């Protein structure tokens, strides 16, 4: 083994020396043979002549020995590479076009894969992330919920203490908290975590320690905080003595006990945590609600995580946890907070709830981006395939042109395998060059996309980076090899089948038919793929149009919005309420302001406050059907421009003794069909007390969007914020007289003067906010449009290439036809028949494919069917026109063939 390695090493790096030695060795052999003959009495000249003859051609012996050398394959490869580079350099246009096409194709794929990998495929940067699961309860929870993956604190405790399947279990709650620096204030993301968090995740502290069981056993007892690595760097300047320092969160002094390992930003990628706080500090971190101490089982708010014991699958764990959950549900169904509002039918539904385990690396961003990113990768993949088809076409054409070269090589004894290898090396060289440029392009593309996609201040903090890592590099190399095989192997195998004799014979300028039918099939595939891409682009562009056109249901042109949460800055509920009263008056007095509205729920940001309601003729319902609620200021509807349809809006006097509500049309239709809703009453279901329906409807407004633009109008009810006592923060909507964008800075400054201690969050125009909420749709629409355009261009070039070549090959035949009296129009028709056949077959295949794949993208569309016929027909027309024009050029050229010249060619 070692001798082999040494031989390999010598053969590679000491070839010259070896060759010299071999020469000398053979020389010595000849001389020794001659000397022997001399001794036996032969005359010197004859002896040397015979010796040489006996040795039999030194060169051949040398070659035989060389061929034996270990690593001779590498030697040949080097030859192939050298020759390949020479061939490519001889035809720089061809090489540049090919490498450029590949660079674009591989670059686009790498860029998309990089995003997909980081957002969707990669698991959390913790130890053995594949063992980590989110434990959620499916079905109707019959209570209030902070999100689909949350459970109540008592249920978490039950599951944690009684399960047999997890080696560790923890829960977390994301919160936005206020920190003060200097005279300014800001909000950061905090993660409230139960004590086993760091231990179960296997995340260490690089400084100090992580949160221990002692920190998290008694509520409000340990005001400690662990910093994320990036927050430690940006906020504390990587201070090595940070442990033991104290800083205020929500006005409470918190002691730093450690810094988490670099790269770990909590378990939710889209919302990187800056600080980790024991969940026992919930009251201090979220002054508005306290599911921890009141132990309500009908309030689900924590996300529970478990680490599966080694060897257990998620299915096994799920099955083992199900009886445990059922036991918990049985107990909960007996409790007054459940029986108060639920019927016996509800109880049956409730007891059918199940445990579901999700990947611990799942999060909202991943969920939202999974389909769009896979889709975009599929689109770029299709574009690359199209590019490969074009390159294969180019290579086939070139292979035909090089037939003589191959024939010569075959004639002087090259193996066919050697020729296939030579061609593969050439295609690898091209795709290798393309990949290098493509990687650079991918970096630029990803950086640009991230800048467009994210708000400016979020780019640096986002967990996704445009810099390629090992996985991305491996992907790029994989794509490179794959493409080389796709566009290189076919032509290579064909070329190696070159027949020697006809190729070397004088063919008087006739071009061989090599690969024509193959090239037509390639063009057909290109046609169908580009139809598919055009169709997808059409669907996504129209989806974006539809979403932009539906709008939220009220005019947004002159609206500015921002959010404040005074309770996080230490204000009490009473102070907060008067703070907002003063704020309203203050902003109303600002020059250029038409009116000011306040709402406890921000609209069109994906949030919703939903609660079951009850009335005389209806009660309790699953959360998906519960109406969306909000508490608003009296001017809310006029400021937003939502028309009042019946009754009246709120006045500042609507605070007592009755509860008042304004509902939308959908609410009125759903709960009070065929009745005048004004004057009807309903109540909000509450698990803490028995409720009677005593909230009176005073007005009905038009339907508007609440959660996002995609939703269909939902039942909504609004209450006057002045009537409630526990306001923690509100979102303001300011209608301006002029352009709201010019107003942004003035408003920011006014807020700073009004109260520098309360941070202003998400200040932007509502138009911007809506535009931002459509960023995924815009990304998909614009990229798919670009890909569709590129795909069509590639397909059209492919068609043109094949037809132009066909016309060239048939010049003589066309000449004869014209000489025999065929009209020019007949010739055009003859060529165009072929063109249209190609387009027709390709498009037909494309239509079939499009209809088959349509269901995959249904969830990404809005306002149109995934098999929308007009979009499909439109795409087919665009493609047919473009391809038809491209086919017309060679057809016209064919018709202008001069019969005398054509016939003289022979």
């Amino acid at each position: 083994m070692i001798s082999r390695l040494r031989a390999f090493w010598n053969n590679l790096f000491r070839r010259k020396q070896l060759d010299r030695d071999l020469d000398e060795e053979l020389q010595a052999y000849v001389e020794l043979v001659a000397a022997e003959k001399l001794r036996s009495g032969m005359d010197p000249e004859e002896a040397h002549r015979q010796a040489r003859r006996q040795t039999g051609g030194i060169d051949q012996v040398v070659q035989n020995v060389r061929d034996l050398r270990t690593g001779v394959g590498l030697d040949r490869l080097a030859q192939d590479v050298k020759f390949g580079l020479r061939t490519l350099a001889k035809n720089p246009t061809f090489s540049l076009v090919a490498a450029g096409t590949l660079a674009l194709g591989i670059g686009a794929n790498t860029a998309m894969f990089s995003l997909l990998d980081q957002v969707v495929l990669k698991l959390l940067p913790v130890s053995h992330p594949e063992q980590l699961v989110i434990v959620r309860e499916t079905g109707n929870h019959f209570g209030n919920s902070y999100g689909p993956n949350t459970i109540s604190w008592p249920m978490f405790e039950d599951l944690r203490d009684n399960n047999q399947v997890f080696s560790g279990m923890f829960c977390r709650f994301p919160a936005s908290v206020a920190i003060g620096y200097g005279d300014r204030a800001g909000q950061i993301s905090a993660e409230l975590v139960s004590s086993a968090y760091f231990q179960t995740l296997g995340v260490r502290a690089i400084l100090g320690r992580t949160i221990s069981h002692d920190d998290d056993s008694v509520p409000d007892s340990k005001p400690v905080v662990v910093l994320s690595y990036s927050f430690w760097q940006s906020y504390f300047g990587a201070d090595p003595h940070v442990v033991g320092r104290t800083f205020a969160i929500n006005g409470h002094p918190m002691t730093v006990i450690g810094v988490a390992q670099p790269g770990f930003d909590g378990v939710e990628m889209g919302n990187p945590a800056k600080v980790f706080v024991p969940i026992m500090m919930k009251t201090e971190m979220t002054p508005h609600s306290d599911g921890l101490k009141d132990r309500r089982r009908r309030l689900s708010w924590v996300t529970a995580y478990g680490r599966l014991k080694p060897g257990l699958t998620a299915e096994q764990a799920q099955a083992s946890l199900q009886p445990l959950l059922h036991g918990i549900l049985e107990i909960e169904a007996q409790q007054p907070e459940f029986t108060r509002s639920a019927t016996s039918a509800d109880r049956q539904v409730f007891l059918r709830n199940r445990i579901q385990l999700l990947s611990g690396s799942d999060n909202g961003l991943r969920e939202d981006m999974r389909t769009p990113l896979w889709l975009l990768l599929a689109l770029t993949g299709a574009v690359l395939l199209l590019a490969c088809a074009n390159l294969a076409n180019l290579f086939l054409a070139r292979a035909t042109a090089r037939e003589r070269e191959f024939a010569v090589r075959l004639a002087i004894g090259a193996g066919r395998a050697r020729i296939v290898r030579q061609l593969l090396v050439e295609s690898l060289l091209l795709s290798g060059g393309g990949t290098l440029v493509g990687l650079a392009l991918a970096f630029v593309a990803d950086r640009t996309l991230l800048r467009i996609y994210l708000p400016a201040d979020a780019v640096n903090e986002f967990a996704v980076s445009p810099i390629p890592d090992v996985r991305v590099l491996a992907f790029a190399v994989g794509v490179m090899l794959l493409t080389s095989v796709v566009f290189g192997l076919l032509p290579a195998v064909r070329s190696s089948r070159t027949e020697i004799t006809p190729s070397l014979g004088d063919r008087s300028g006739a071009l061989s038919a090599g690969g024509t039918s193959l090239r037509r099939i390639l063009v057909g595939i290109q046609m169908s793929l580009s139809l598919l891409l055009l169709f997808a682009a059409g669907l996504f562009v129209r989806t974006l149009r539809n979403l932009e056109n539906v709008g939220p249901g009220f005019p947004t042109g002159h609206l500015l919005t921002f959010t404040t949460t005074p309770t996080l800055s230490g204000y009490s509920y009473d102070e907060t309420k008067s703070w907002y009263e003063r704020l309203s008056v203050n902003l109303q007095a600002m020059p250029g302001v038409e009116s000011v509205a306040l709402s406890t729920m921000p609209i069109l940001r994906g949030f919703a406050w939903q609660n079951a309601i009850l009335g005389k003729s209806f009660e309790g319902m699953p959360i998906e059907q519960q109406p969306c609620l909000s508490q608003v200021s009296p001017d809310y509807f006029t400021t937003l421009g939502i028309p009042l349809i019946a009754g009246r809006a709120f006045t500042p006097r609507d605070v007592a003794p009755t509860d008042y509500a304004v509902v939308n049309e959908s609410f009125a239709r759903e709960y009070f069909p065929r009745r005048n809703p004004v004057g009807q009453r309903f109540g909000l279901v509450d698990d803490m007390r028995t409720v009677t329906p005593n909230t009176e409807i005073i007005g009905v407004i038009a339907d508007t969007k609440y959660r996002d633009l995609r939703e269909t109008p939902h039942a909504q009810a609004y209450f006057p914020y002045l009537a409630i006592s526990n306001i923690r923060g509100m979102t303001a909507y300011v209608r301006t007289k002029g352009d709201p964008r010019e107003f942004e800075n003035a408003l920011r400054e006014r807020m700073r003067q009004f109260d520098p201690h309360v941070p202003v969050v998400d200040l932007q125009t509502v138009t911007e906010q809506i535009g931002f909420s459509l960023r995924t749709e815009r990304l998909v629409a614009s990229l798919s449009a670009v890909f569709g355009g590129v795909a069509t261009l590639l397909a059209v070039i492919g068609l043109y290439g094949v037809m132009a070549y066909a016309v060239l090959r048939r010049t003589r035949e066309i000449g004869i036809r014209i000489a025999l009296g065929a009209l020019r129009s007949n010739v055009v028709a003859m060529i165009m028949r072929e063109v249209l056949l190609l387009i027709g077959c390709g498009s037909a295949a494309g239509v079939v494919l499009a209809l088959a794949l349509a269901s995959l993208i249904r969830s990404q569309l809005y306002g149109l069917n995934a098999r929308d016929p007009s979009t499909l027909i439109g795409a087919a027309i665009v493609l047919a026109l473009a391809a038809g024009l491209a086919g017309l050029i060679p057809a016209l050229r064919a018709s202008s063939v001069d019969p005398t010249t054509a016939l003289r060619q022979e």
Partner: protein
Amino acid sequence: MAGAESDLLQGTLDVLILKALALQELHGMGVSRRIGQMTNGAFDVKAGSLFPALHRMEQAGWLTSSWGHAETNRRAKFYALTKAGRKHLRTETNRWARISLAMGAALGVGQEAL
């Protein structure tokens, strides 16, 4: 028989070279001559097969080579057996013994049947 290049059985040349080098180290010509002596001139190994075989066996680790001086004081490359080479020679010798016995029995050598 002498002078005609016999069709050496596959592997025969390797064993012969190993055997030739078993007693002392030799240069290429020496190996060729020694094989001629050992086989009473039945095998005349030409340079075209000898040198590729020597280099192949050196890469396989059965032989080592060093530069020395031949009878005529000409600088020449000498080959010697390595430990692995000796071991290989032993196993090959055993194999050949079995084969020649079997072949002898099969063809009835020594019965003057022909």
